[in-house]
């Protein structure tokens, strides 16, 4: 009986936390997006003193770039250079 109750409680907690998980993931993705913007602001015309040094991060960013600019509300890539669409 106790076992049963424990299982039930665990299940209940999981159900409760699911929507929160999604919220958290969204929140964190927003943080990532802002970070992205800080790195590549130069491409949008906002100066970034370390722009040159962000180029080396490019290889790790490139895959996420397409999703990012779509989320930022730009249907087409803001970079004339990357035609990922």
């Amino acid at each position, binding site marked *: 009986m106790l076992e049963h109750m424990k299982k039930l409680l665990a299940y209940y907690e999981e159900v409760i936390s699911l929507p929160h*998980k999604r919220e*958290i*993931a969204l929140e*964190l993705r927003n*943080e*990532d997006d*802002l*970070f992205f913007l*800080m*790195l590549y602001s*130069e491409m949008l015309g906002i100066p*970034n*003193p*370390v*722009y*040159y*040094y962000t*180029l*080396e*991060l*490019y*290889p*790790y*960013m*490139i*895959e996420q770039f397409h999703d990012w600019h779509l989320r930022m509300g730009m249907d087409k890539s803001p*970079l004339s*250079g*990357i*035609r*990922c669409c």
Partner: protein
Amino acid sequence: MDVLTKTIIFVGGKGGVGKSTSAAALALMSAREGHETLLVSTDPAHNTGDIFRRKIGGDITRIQRNLSALEIDPERETTKYINSVKENIKGTVHSGMMEEVHRQLDTAKASPGADEAALFDKLIRIILEERENFDKIIFDTAPTGHTIRLLSLPELMGVWIEGLLAKRKKTNDNYSRLLNDGEPREDPVYDVLRERQQRFARVRRILLNQEETGFIFVLNPERLPILETEKAIQLLAKYELDVKTLIINKVLPEEADGTFFAERKKYEKPHLEDIRKRFEKQEKIYIPLFPGDVSELEQLERYSTYFKKGSML
């Protein structure tokens, strides 16, 4: 000249006052004294090769015993950097996108600040990596404004990157705590940035270490160079960089004769007085105006004898 005991020496000053000559003479003297010496020109308008009457260029070139030189070529450094990024991208991007990415990177090459960043990057690499190979590294810098910017960059960049890092770390920590059951999030971006930031911090520590790094400013006994030098000293002080030595170049020698020079000397006198008053704290080395160009080795040697004499006035 206490500054000669330092491992890294920056020679700055207004255009045309004799920076390159002073830096070359210093380097030559240091080499003659048996120190393995590297003379680095960071001025885009390189003079070092002209002074030693030979091609130097972007690779470390042996000039004579114990003396090597290098003229940093920002364009070449930028190309190298961009190529290494391209190399890294291979394999992460599907081939259809490759060409676009390359184009993007090539436009970055022409972006404002790219040259400066490349130059700065090379400077950092020399300071961090060539200290093992040389006893002394002497930097012949561009005119004052550039130099101050170059020397203040480690701090500026450091602050910026630290901000990025802090933000990234917070996000990563949250990811691992809230979504990954405490498993750390793999993040190459953070690692690369951190590596950068540590390099900036290391260079800044070296520049601020007065046991290791010295700053010399060259000026002439004229109004503008005096004012500019004073400003530069004040600015560098803001970054905790202490200019302890001044070279006052092209002082009219005693034996200059004729009415023209007598006239000229009258005009020079108050400026020398001004220099003495304004720069009380700095050690001052006076070098007379030479009758000809200082571009022969023996001339350079004669020039450097004044470093030993120190102040003659």
